[in-house]
Every structure is written in C-alpha cells, then in structure tokens.
C-alpha cells in the first residue's frame, strides 16, 4: 500500500455540520407507501402480489426478474392498493406497487430474529443477501449478491467498505457507522468469509474522528481488517479513486473493480448485509439525511422505503419558504424532482431542499480557460475541451480525448466560474456514443 495522493477535487464548506451531530431518529409514517419496481440497475422486479392482497413488513412483493435484478420487500403492513405508474425522484414514471399502510407495522414470522450464521456456507450467505433484496445503497444500486459473486472469488484481494461519504451535506452513512459500528465490522467479517484471500479495508474521511476512534477499537483484534483514512473532499469517494487510494491500482472506464482484485461496497450496504444475515432483518427502511437551509429541524431519519418525501419534510419541521430546489440524493450527483410527491427508494441517501438564493444561477459567460475544471477532474480529463467537442458533436475526438472516462461526478461544473454545464453536456454526449456503440 504505497502512498498515493489524490488529484483533483474541490475545496469548500460541505454542509455536513448541519446534521452531523443529529442521531438517527426512527420515523413511522401512517400514509401510503410506494415501491417503484426499478430501484436497482438491471431489469425491473416482477410484482408477485395483487391489488387487494394484505402484506406484512418484510414480505416480498416483487421478485428479481433476471440475473442482475433484486427483490423488493414491503416496509409496512397493510393492503396493496394499486400497481400503477408513479413518478420517481429522477422525474421518470415507473411501474410501482402502492401499499395502503395500516400503521401497525406487523412483520412476517422470524423478522428480526437472531440467526446462528457462523455455520452458514458461502451459498447460504449469498442467498440471505439476495433474499433481502440488498442493492448498493451508495448511488447506482447494483444488486449486492451479483457484486459478491465474481467469476473468480479467490482473486479478490481487497474488500473495500466505502465510508468516505464525500458528497456534501450527507451524514446518513456517518451516523450509521457511528451508531452501529459493531454491526459494520460484523458485516465486513461476513463479506470476508466469502473471499478467503481478501483483506478488509474500511475507508473513512479523516475528519470523522469519532468513527475512526470507535472502529479502531473494534478492529484491534481483527488481523484481516484495516482502516484507511482519506481526505474526504469530493469526489474522492468515487469507486475508481477509492481503489487507487487503497491499492495504488488504476482503473479506466472499461474495467470493473474485480479486474484489479477489489470488491467495493458502501458502508450502508455492509451494514444491511449484517442485519440481513445475522438478524434476519432485510433493509426495509434506510437512513435519509434531511437537510438544506430551508428546514427548521434538519435531521437523519430512519424511514421505511416507499415513504413519500412529503412525510420527511413534515418530520423535519416543514419548509419555511418556497423551495428553490429539491434534491434527492447528494447535491452533486442526486436527482432533482419537480415535486415532493416521490417515494424514498433504496438509493435515497438524502432529501435536500434549498432556497432560491442558496443556488447560484448565473448566466453563462465565455470560457476564459482558467483551468479550474482541469484541476478538479478526478479522471484527469480536460472538461472544457470535451465540452467544446460535445458542442460541435465531434464524437470521435470526444472519445479520443477520454470523454468516455468521465465518472459523472460533476466537479467540473461545480467549479466552473463561467457557469457552464460541463458535466451534463459531457454526460449526454457520452450516453449518445454508448447508444450508438450498442446498436452496432
């Protein structure tokens, strides 16, 4: 593990102070919950309940419909009200199951019971994870059981737990790691049983002293687990950056972590694995940071999946002013729905609402070649150049200049003093190139 320095990134106040010291609060709403069938990468799940069926907490309501897909479980008890198209945070309409919540939160048999998992085989552990419908809780939602089943499991040398949570404002992972540090280590130990040759690495932001203290004490007698402290400036928690920092190995866009012997999981995902395997408690709820300058009581909430955002807003004290912008997820890569009537899904790490004056909405001005985007890009690209190629729709040159390597972190747009939508333009061009390649 040589000393590797991060390049790129940005410097700023990250807004985490607002909710950093707010303990996780359990929220149990009484209203309808909505479960989009596509909460993960891959094929949407297939509903296995019908309108009118009564369901319990933890009951499977939709089934994985392919290799890369995940089950969806009910997070409340009640009755299936409808199976219809509902709007999601990304602004798209998605087939969803709507459950009328009876507010009793009756669970299925065996929910939350401790399990003697020490004797479980690898296949049994993977089955537990699959049954629990666990997907990556960090961002894109890759089904975890698929990630944990690489072609050659002996070649995995590092199981990396991403606890860097480098997106501004987010404190959900931090609170989880702090309040459930034993379970985090327990989850990592379960993952290490799947990969005998691997070392477990928990990556933390070095500013999170409390987490570091607790976890260091817990792993004192764990020879296979180490902590790695990194500078948590965005976007250093991005997968490729993280692997580079931990192993010194570099990945490009055509490679996946297992190519360099790594499996990377978000801290929340590892925690979910522990709860699913050891406590028979699949992740039917998740921690959501509710923050931004408009809330009177910003907080970290543990909410059932499917809860509409409006409930979170109410729990956080309501909005003082007319919102300028709603963001679901981190402020850098999250989605911005046009209303609060969208549900919490497996990937919802935060609900942020900002007032209009908090957003900078300057008019675009000409590029003066200041080079800020070049310095900020973690993939060492030249965003302003790619932007020009994209505007001219010179796709060949765009790809030659590494445009396909962009990791969509948005750092270039953040720093651009000319107010150009660099990242969005580059993303669109990249997608259209990918589409063309797929057609061929």
């Amino acid at each position, binding site marked *: 593990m040589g000393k590797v320095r991060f390049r790129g990134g940005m410097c700023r106040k990250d807004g985490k102070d607002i909710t950093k010291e707010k303990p996780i609060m359990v929220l149990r709403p009484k209203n309808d919950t909505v479960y989009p069938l596509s909460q993960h990468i891959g094929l949407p799940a297939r509903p296995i309940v019908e309108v009118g069926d009564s369901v319990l907490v933890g009951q499977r309501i939709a089934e994985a419909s392919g290799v890369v897909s995940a089950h969806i479980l009910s997070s409340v008890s009640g009755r299936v009200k409808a199976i219809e198209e509902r709007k999601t945070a990304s602004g798209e309409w998605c087939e969803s199951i709507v459950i009328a919540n009876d507010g009793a939160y009756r669970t299925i048999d065996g929910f939350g019971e401790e399990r003697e998992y020490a004797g479980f085989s690898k296949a049994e552990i993977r089955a537990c994870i699959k049954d629990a419908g666990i997907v990556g809780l960090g961002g894109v939602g890759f089904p975890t059981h698929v990630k944990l089943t690489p072609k050659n499991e002996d070649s995995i040398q590092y199981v990396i737990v991403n606890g860097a949570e480098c997106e501004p404002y987010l404190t959900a992972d931090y609170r989880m790691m702090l309040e459930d540090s034993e379970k985090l280590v327990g989850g990592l130990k379960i993952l290490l049983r799947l990969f005998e040759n691997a070392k477990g690495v928990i990556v933390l932001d070095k500013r999170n002293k409390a987490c570091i203290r607790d976890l260091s004490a817990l792993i004192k007698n764990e020879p296979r687990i180490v902590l790695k402290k990194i500078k948590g400036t965005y976007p250093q928690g991005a997968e490729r950056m993280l692997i580079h920092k931990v192993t010194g190995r570099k990945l490009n866009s055509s*490679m996946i972590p297992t190519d360099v012997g790594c499996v990377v999981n978000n801290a929340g995902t590892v925690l979910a694995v522990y709860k699913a395997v050891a406590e028979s408690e699949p992740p039917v709820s998740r921690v959501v940071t509710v923050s931004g300058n408009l809330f009177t009581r910003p907080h970290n909430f543990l909410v059932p999946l499917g809860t509409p955002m409006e409930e979170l807003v109410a729990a956080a004290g309501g909005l003082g002013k007319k919102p300028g912008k709603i963001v679901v997820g981190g402020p850098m890569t999250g989605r911005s729905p046009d209303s609060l009537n969208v549900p919490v899904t497996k990937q919802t790490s935060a609900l942020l609402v900002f007032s209009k004056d908090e*957003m*900078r909405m300057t008019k675009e001005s000409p590029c003066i070649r200041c080079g800020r985007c070049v310095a900020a890009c973690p993939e060492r690209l030249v965003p302003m150049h790619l932007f020009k190629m994209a505007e001219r729709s010179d796709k060949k040159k765009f790809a030659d200049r590494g445009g396909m390597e962009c990791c969509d972190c948005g750092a270039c747009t953040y720093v651009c003093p000319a107010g150009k*939508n660099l990242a969005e333009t580059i993303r669109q061009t990249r997608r259209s190139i990918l589409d063309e390649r797929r057609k061929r």
Partner: protein
Amino acid sequence: MKNMTEVPAFPHIRSKETTATMLWDVVIALAPAALFGVYRFGLIALIILASAVATCVLLDFVCNKLRKRSYTGYEPSAIVTGLILGMSLYPEVPYWVPVAGGAFAVLLVKMLFGGLGKNILNPAVAALIVTFGGLRQFVQPPVVQTAEEVGLLDNFLGFKEGTIGGVSTFLLLLGGLYLVLCRVISLRIPFFYLLTFAAFTVVFAVITKNEVPDVQELASFFCRDGLLLGAFFMATDTTTSPMTGKGRIVYGILLGLLTGVFSVVTKGGHEVLYGVLTGNLFVRLIDRLTYPRYFGKGQKAKL
C-alpha cells in the same frame, strides 16, 4: 405541488466563484500599486489610468453590443486590461497614448479574435508593445536611474522614476499574493517565471562578465520596473496561459528564458513585455504537449 422548482442540470450546487468575481479580485489586487502610482506621480497618473480604463470599457461595451452578446458578468475584464495598460505607461506620455493603446488592445487584440476568452495574445501586453514600438518618440522613459542611485528600500517601495504602476514592487507583490491566497491564480507561473529569469541573468552574468552578482544586485533585480506586474498579472492571464498545472510550470520557465534573452537583446528595456508576448504564442503548443493522460489509461485487468 407540481412544478414548484426549476430543474436544471446536475450538480445541484455550484461554487460561488464566477468569472466576474475572479476579475474583480484582479482589479482589487492591482489597485494598491495603481493608487501608489497616483500618489507618487500626481494627477497626471490618474488621468492616464482613467483614460486607459475608460477607453477599454467603452469599446468593450460597444463591441459586445454590436455583436449582440450579453455583456453582463464580465465587465471587469476590460477594467483589468485598461488598468494593466495604464499602469505600464510612464506618467509623461501624451494624453492620447492610453486611448490609442486601449483601442488597439480591445479592438485588434481582443475583439478581432472573438472577444473574451478567445484572444491569443494578452491585449494589454500587445498594445503596450505596439505603443512602445510605434510611438517611440512619445513614450520614452524620462530619466533612467540606476539601482545604486535609488537605494534598495526606495527601489522596493517604488520611490523612483518609472511606469505608473510598475514601480512599487512591494504593493505588486502584495497584490500578487492576494490573488494566490484567493486562489484566483496559482503560484506556478509567477514562481517559475521569476526563478528562471533570475537564474538566466545570474548564469549570463557569470559567463559574460565572469562575476557572480551579490545579494544587493539580485534584490534590485527583482525590483526592476514592471517585472512583478508582468509576473503576477500579465503572465497569469488565464486566456493566454496554459490550462494544466504542468503546462503552467513549462510556461513559467519558457517566459523566464524568453525574458532573459530579450533583456540581453533589447537594450531599451520592456523585456518582460516581449517575453510574455512571445510566450503567448507558445501557449496552444504547450497545452497540446502537456495534455493530461486520463486516469487509468492503458491499464489492463490484472487478474
């Protein structure tokens, strides 16, 4: 609750820094040295500065209006050009010289190439070279003083004859450091520029005169009229300097060498201007040669 917010592209938060705030910072950084010039040389210096700035701002405004471009957000760009131009002139120049210089800078060097961000040469520097070259009989330096005559402290503080804004090494250094601390410019270009230029001068002195300059000589070297104005404000103009960190180091070194050569070749001074202008021509080449290798390029699956 439909359509209650605007939904522009990600990321959803932006840095507070804009092109305008960056350029205003440059104006702030230039101000002390310019004001010192006014204090030192009197009202005439103020008139020269004001007419240079006014010419640039007015022409920039008119051109943008004619081209039907929005003009909001980058007004200070013309102020910076005008200030650097005015500050590099001697207080004795006729009143129309800053106007002519400003017009040349904005119309021919900036607008002809497409306006803000498109020019290849630094407008102020190019205009100054044309002024000093073409209008030679009007812009001669009044009195040439040697470093010994002035004394080191006065030399550093700017109590000497010279250009309006170029004399106060101290205040220019202060302004330059302000820009570095505000992260408007990086230290790379000025640092490597000054280092290389100094090293060139020392080596040249050793080779030709076979003597090593002493500390006093070196100190007065850095206090020469206009050197810091060039290093911190002309060479770091983002439009006419490379975009990568590596490129900026190369550029700084190149500028140092060019300035060194010009200081030997041209007896009439202005080597900083010649150095920067010649360096401008290499910027696109340096950009191409130092184009970064993207992360993970050429990597293959190891396992």
